[in-house]
């Protein structure tokens, strides 16, 4: 339980630190933060094994952290340092750390879904009971790659978990303006894929849904679709004033903050005390500070690196 809380706090602290560093121009690029959506990453990855594989999209920091990628290497990547997980060649939207099972992220909306199809295909062929999970937003649900991939995953019974983070918006536009389908999990039904729509701000509900789906996939039952209803508490990208949504909507969702909600539940159940809760947050913040500090001293890549690693071997 405390592990889930610690993961969520680490993600929150990481994203807040990224925002701060971005203001100081110490990290760069198009940054999409996942503040408010931590329960999806933490709950889902807690239900996966280290050997399971994750593919993410343009909002990947939380997924990478929850899958166990070293935070200092993430900060360093965002800062463009050679010590970054991708040697500074990837950046925020293209994080990769395959040894942790975090195969890659991609900045192409929908592209992650088709890539994950191949990751799941390989998992199946390796016959080691590994499963693949792909995180994507509601905006990806209207892409061709999404529908092509649902069809093939269902047809071939691939061990693939489609994890949709439905935060209600794609950039500045509400989902209702992009599709007449209000629940994206209904697309799964069309293809005969078992699906569930869960409260994405309830970390235990997410974990349970993903556990069930992973067990089904491991048993040869094929793909599942889990739609997690959530909300991003910040703009679409760092610097987005988010004028397209009502302040009342934002404050409403703030009361459903996944971290505070889970902490309150734990205290209420007597699982732990207020002090222990605060200690978890403090530890997470301290580890994030230390990681950011470490990253800030990383070496810059040599400019010769521009043309290295274009080809393998």
């Amino acid at each position: 339980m405390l592990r889930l809380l610690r993961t969520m706090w680490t993600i929150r602290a990481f994203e807040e630190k990224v925002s701060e560093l971005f203001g100081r121009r110490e990290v760069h690029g198009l940054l999409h933060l996942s503040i408010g959506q931590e329960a999806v990453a933490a709950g889902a990855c807690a239900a996966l094994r280290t050997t399971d594989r994750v593919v993410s999209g343009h909002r990947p920091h939380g997924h990478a952290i929850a899958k166990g990628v070293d935070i200092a290497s993430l900060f360093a990547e965002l800062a463009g340092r050679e010590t970054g997980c991708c040697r500074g060649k990837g950046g925020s939207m293209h994080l990769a750390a395959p040894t942790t099972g975090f195969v890659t992220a991609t900045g192409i909306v929908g592209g992650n879904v088709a890539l994950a199809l191949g990751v799941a295909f390989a998992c199946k062929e390796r016959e080691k009971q590994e499963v693949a999970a792909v995180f994507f937003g509601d905006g990806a649900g209207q892409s061709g790659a999404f529908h092509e991939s649902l069809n093939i995953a269902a047809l071939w019974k691939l061990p693939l978990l489609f994890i949709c983070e439905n935060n209600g918006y794609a950039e500045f536009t509400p989902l209702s303006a992009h599709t007449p389908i209000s629940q994206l999990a209904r697309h799964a039904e069309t293809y005969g894929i078992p699906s569930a729509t869960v409260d994405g701000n309830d970390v235990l509900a997410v974990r349970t849904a993903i556990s069930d789906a992973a067990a089904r996939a491991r048993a040869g039952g094929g793909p599942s679709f889990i739609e997690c209803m959530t909300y991003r508490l910040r703009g679409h990208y760092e610097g987005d004033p988010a004028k397209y949504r009502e302040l009342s909507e934002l404050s409403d969702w703030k009361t459903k903050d996944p971290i505070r909600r889970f902490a309150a539940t734990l205290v209420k159940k007597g699982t732990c005390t207020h002090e222990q809760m605060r200690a978890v947050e403090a530890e997470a913040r301290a580890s994030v500070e230390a990681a950011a500090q470490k990253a800030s001293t990383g070496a810059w890549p040599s400019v010769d690196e521009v043309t290295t690693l274009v080809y393998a071997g």
Partner: protein
Amino acid sequence: MAELTYIEAINSALREELARDRGVYVIGEDVALGGPFGATKGLAAEFGERRVVNTPISEGAIMGLATGAAAMGLRPVIEVMFVDFITLAMDQLVNHAAKLHYMSGGQLGIPLTVRVQQGAAGNGGAQHSQSLEAWFIHVPGLKVVMPSNPADAKGLLTAAIRDDSPVICIEHRALYWTRGEVPDGEHTIPIGRAALRRPGKDVTLVATSRMVEVALEVAGTLANEGIEVEVIDPRSLLPLDLDTITASLRKTGRLVIAHEAVEGAGFGAELLAQVQEAAFDYLDAPIARVGAPFAPVPASPVLEQAFVPGAERLAGAVRKVVLGA
């Protein structure tokens, strides 16, 4: 040596690699049924439909599937039925397959092979006859090979499958049923090495894919006129064996480039630029390019024939470069 058709040579490369490496998968539309041109004939019966995998008509997802599987260490060989259809898979090819090795800081390898055929033959019209190799040579991270005969079809495909980077093997549909000697057993050709098809001292003619055949015909004709044409087949457009071409220019001082794709912004334009940067001092005449006119491929047999650069046009261009205007 055995005499095989180009398509049989491809089939034999696929069969041998499927047998050699459990990580090799052949994936595409109707491939388990032999494919529309027979390249994958018999493979499903021999290796099972788990390794010779039929897909729905979802080019984007297939390219994504193969890229993701390659990132996991498998060696997928996908067949895209016509190069014209690769338009639907460009995101996965260009944004993912080509870049994942680089973007991941070298952590991911993408040992992916894309087999695709192209060319104007059989009056398929504008959406089934294009030559699009120039699109791919503009993308860092991809390798592009274009076999012009059965032996190269086998050797280059085998090398592509064993390569740890994504390689696009662009076959020419009109060559599928041409015959040639193919070395028995394992046969690989290093990617990035050109072939001298005919020596000559007066002019270098660099021709790709089906234009190699045309270039050799032209060289024969011009020999009778006292012009000795050296024909070079780059075989691999990316990486390009520029050294072999400049070495030839050192001798001939003249260059004509021939490809079936439209001339504008084509491989010829790129080669021309590279040659003038690397070998300007060897040149005794302006470089000529011969490609298709800047138009979609027309359907009518009369128009298609006029579209494809033929021997007459090519001979005219070579004469002009050698003899002056």
